[in-house]
């Protein structure tokens, strides 16, 4: 059994020219927890996600997914990863089912197994009836649900969500936040959720606060409140993200 953390980041640095986007970032996340990566716009969350998904090369430091170094064992590392990007990445001209089968094929899942898993995931997200509809016909909330189903199709040990609720109405947001937290509580998957929306945090979540490329705080909600001396997460967040 693999006992490595689902995600381990050690001393990662990244710059856009002279502008430093990430400065000595290190943390670990394990299955069974929903970890919220908090940070204002421009904190470095998207850059960090691009490094974790190998969209950008890591110039210094080490990123391991499920114990596999993203630079040395890229394919093995990416196989452990499910991701929902901030911008929708579904093919609008294909149906929900076709999009999911395409993803399954990229992960080497056979047609039969893929069909069974597609039904299972869509059932959980209440999207089974809409699987033959083109993605173009779905609203933002339903597209997000399809993307979550897609990210879980190959049974990853780590789920990355990059501000997945941006632009959604309150019921869609609530249902997605609730679903992902329930998923993390099953203990089989680690969730890293990048957000700047404080109300998406549950009391038993872990927090990582990123500001101007540096980690300002990590730990449970209570631990962060204690460290900052703030009564609420909102206040702690403002305290941690002020100044340089």
């Amino acid at each position, binding site marked *: 059994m693999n006992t490595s953390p689902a995600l381990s980041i050690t001393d990662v640095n990244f710059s856009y020219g002279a502008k430093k986007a990430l400065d000595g970032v290190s943390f670990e996340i394990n299955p069974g927890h929903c970890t919220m990566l908090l940070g204002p716009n421009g904190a470095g969350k998207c850059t960090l996600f691009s490094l974790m998904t190998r969209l950008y090369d890591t110039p210094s430091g080490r990123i391991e997914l499920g114990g596999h170094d993203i630079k040395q064992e890229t394919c093995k590392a990416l196989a452990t*990863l499910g991701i929902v990007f901030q911008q929708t990445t579904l093919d609008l001209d294909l149906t929900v089912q076709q999009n999911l089968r395409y993803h399954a094929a990229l992960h080497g899942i056979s047609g039969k197994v893929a069909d069974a898993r597609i039904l299972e995931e869509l059932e959980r997200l209440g999207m089974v009836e809409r699987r033959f509809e083109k993605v173009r016909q779905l609203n933002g909330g339903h597209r997000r649900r399809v993307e979550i189903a897609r990210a879980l199709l190959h049974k990853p040990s780590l789920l990355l969500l990059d501000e997945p609720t941006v632009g959604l109405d309150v019921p869609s947001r609530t249902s997605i936040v609730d679903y992902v937290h329930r998923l993390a509580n099953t203990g089989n998957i680690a969730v890293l959720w990048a957000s700047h929306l404080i109300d998406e945090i549950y009391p038993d979540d872990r927090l990582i606060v990123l500001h101007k490329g540096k980690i300002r705080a990590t730990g449970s909600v209570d631990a962060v409140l204690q460290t900052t001396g703030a009564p609420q997460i909102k206040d702690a967040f403002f305290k941690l993200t002020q100044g340089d």
Partner: protein
Amino acid sequence: MNILHFWRAMWGITGRELRRFVTQRERFISALVRPLIWLFVFAAGFRAALGLAINPPYQTYILYEVYITPGLIGMIQLFNGMQSSLSMVYDREMGSMRSLLVSPLPRWFLLLSKLLAGTFVSILQVYVFLAIAWAYKIHAPWQGYLYIIPALILSGLMLGAVGLLLSSFIKQLENFAGVMNFVIFPMFFPLDRALSFMEAERIKPAAVQSGKIQSFFASRRIDPLCSLRPI
């Protein structure tokens, strides 16, 4: 990761390109309209105006429609290569390229699969075009329809690769139409000059010399090299 994984992924990518092509009816129709206009309208017009001399490997006079058909096949593949390139730029802008790039497959394999998928789609278009041409009484012996496949694969890969190269330089979708014209239009002239030189020097590519391409229209009524000239 094993061979089966690669195989499934390649079929997945090819299937996606094919589905996109077939479901986007406008794209499917417009891909065929261009060569068909050349075949039905221009060729019919030039047929009366242009007299075609007996020119090796032809042993007799041929109709202009027959003369132009291999060139139109080249045109279909050329435009499909550009379309694949546009599709890459679109995928990058719309974000669906990301889902491909974060899949657990090497980048070279993803590029190769994209290239093969585009080539497959272009060959499909060529055969639909040939079926319409057949109905228009441009007939080839049945073996010819098989012998052309390797040539179509090679030319499809080459033109698709040019398209992929272009897509790596074009960052915005808006720029694409201009660049596409900029690339395609001058292609006709160097080709025309090259053909003239080859004819003058009696140089022919190995495939033409070996007769593999000519056997497409097996009665040797068409020389593909010469037939590119009118396009």
